[in-house]
């Protein structure tokens, strides 16, 4: 039920930006992006089940520049959401709540997700790119 227009306690407008809140926001954003990314999964599987012409269209999109950019974005989103998801599961188990550890695991998530994405794309380009 909407109350009168009174200020709500901590909200983004007056809150000092910090790593932990950024990571939390990115976790949600990557989750939403990955839901959009499932469209490619559905399309790929349906096309593969349908036949070579349909699959060729999927491959054409993936090999295009916009397609490669989307794939790159989704690959990082998956790596990030996976790493930070493990961090969340550790919290759920009661581990890592103190501030130094929350920051250490937070930076680890950033670095490891970037390294994983780099490794994935090293594999892609080592075998001739997305084509």
């Amino acid at each position, binding site marked *: 039920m909407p109350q009168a227009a009174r200020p709500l306690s901590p909200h983004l407008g007056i809150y000092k930006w910090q790593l932990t809140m950024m990571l939390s926001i990115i976790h949600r954003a990557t989750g939403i992006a990955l839901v959009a990314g*499932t469209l490619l999964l559905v399309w790929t599987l349906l096309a593969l089940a349908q036949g070579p012409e349909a699959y060729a269209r999927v491959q054409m999109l993936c090999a295009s520049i916009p397609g490669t950019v989307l794939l790159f974005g989704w690959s990082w989103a998956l790596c990030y959401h*996976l790493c930070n998801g493990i961090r969340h599961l550790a919290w759920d188990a009661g581990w890592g709540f103190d501030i130094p550890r929350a920051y250490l695991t937070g930076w680890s998530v950033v670095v490891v997700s970037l390294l994983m994405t780099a490794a*994935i794309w090293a594999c892609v380009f080592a075998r001739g790119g997305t084509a």
Partner: protein
Amino acid sequence: MSADLQTPIKRARGLGSAKDGTHHFIIQRITALALIPLSIWIVWLALALMHADFAQARAILHHPFAAVWLAAFVIAAFWHAQLGMQVVIEDYVHTRWLEISAQLAVKFFCFIAALACLLAIARMALS
């Protein structure tokens, strides 16, 4: 005026949680746990498919092992996606009809998308 005579607890009763929040929380964690190995495997699959032609791709997915893992990924991923999107919509969409429409749209999308994937997997595994 009569509503103002109600105590806060009286007004809150029956409008609060639907008493299945714990179940939501637990399923989200179980699917998350399942998705750790499954999503690593899906990256491997995507890399394999990326450099395969149609026949090679079908051969990869014809393998029963691939079909089982992929079906497991699809179920866990869409279940997890639906639970996550539900929370996002609950948090940010405050217009009631929009909220309900968005919740239904997400549920229908996840169900149909998962069904489409599973039928495609079955067709490739059994052909």
